[in-house]
């Protein structure tokens, strides 16, 4: 969608690519801090990115 790789997003957020992948796969729930960073990066709210 944003022509963005997991590696680029990981670097932007200060985590490893494997963490991005684990979040995508639902294997890992990020901390609030990281969740806010992800939401801010895409310019959306946390609810738009994560669902319970």
């Amino acid at each position, binding site marked *: 969608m944003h022509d963005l790789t997991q590696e*680029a997003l990981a670097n932007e957020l*200060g*985590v*490893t690519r494997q*963490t991005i992948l684990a979040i995508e*796969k639902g294997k*890992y729930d990020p901390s609030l801090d*990281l969740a806010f960073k992800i939401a801010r990066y895409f310019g959306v709210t946390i609810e738009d990115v994560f669902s319970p």
Partner: protein
Amino acid sequence: MSMKKAGGCTAGLFHTSLKEEFLSAGAMIRQERPCRKSKILITKCNKHNTYARGQPALISAVLRMFSLEGDPRGRHGDRITEKSVTFITKSQLSYTSGDSMKRTTFYILAGIVGLLEVGAFWLSVELHGPLLIILAFIAGIMLLYLARRKIHDLKEDERAVLINEKAAVRTFQVFWVVFFAISLGDVVLGLGAPGFPRQPRPPNEGLVPLGHIGIVQLLLLFLMIILYVGFRFYYARQYGEWETDEEQD
């Protein structure tokens, strides 16, 4: 400060105060060293995104040098532009303080330290001097600890920290039960032995009992390491350490 040109630059192009700031941040400006040797790790993710990682003070100096935005307080991912990287690369400047290390270098160092520890152990046995191996082991671990802090391509994020924490706590939970059980068994052996409490041991028996205790301690320590590695593996798998997807090569 704006860039004047990308190629053929020298250190003299830098504004004096910025250059001083740059140097005071721990950098060395060299003309014939490749950029990959830099204290700042520059990562080109794609054609648009380039990031620098390194010491916050140094990143801050670079960001100021190129009048770029960034958060020098961040440990990772301070963004710099493609243009500035081109500038740095073509200029063949490197920002070295001589205190960064690659992971592979660290592993080689760890191997060497391990061999030295084996040698120290052998020497300690030969000389009947336990203090030698005790001091050598502590010195080796301290050396490795200091060296590990200087690895610039080691990235530990919150998921890795969580995995380590969970593995450590679970290891402790299992280990103390095993340790307690073995200790209880030992106490029972001691209490049930004929002639308890024992008479004082003759002084010429030396350190043999202590050596036996050391072996038991090492076995328990080995158990602890095995437990930790096992739990580390389990939680790493649980938190997607080896997950793959279509982006994986």
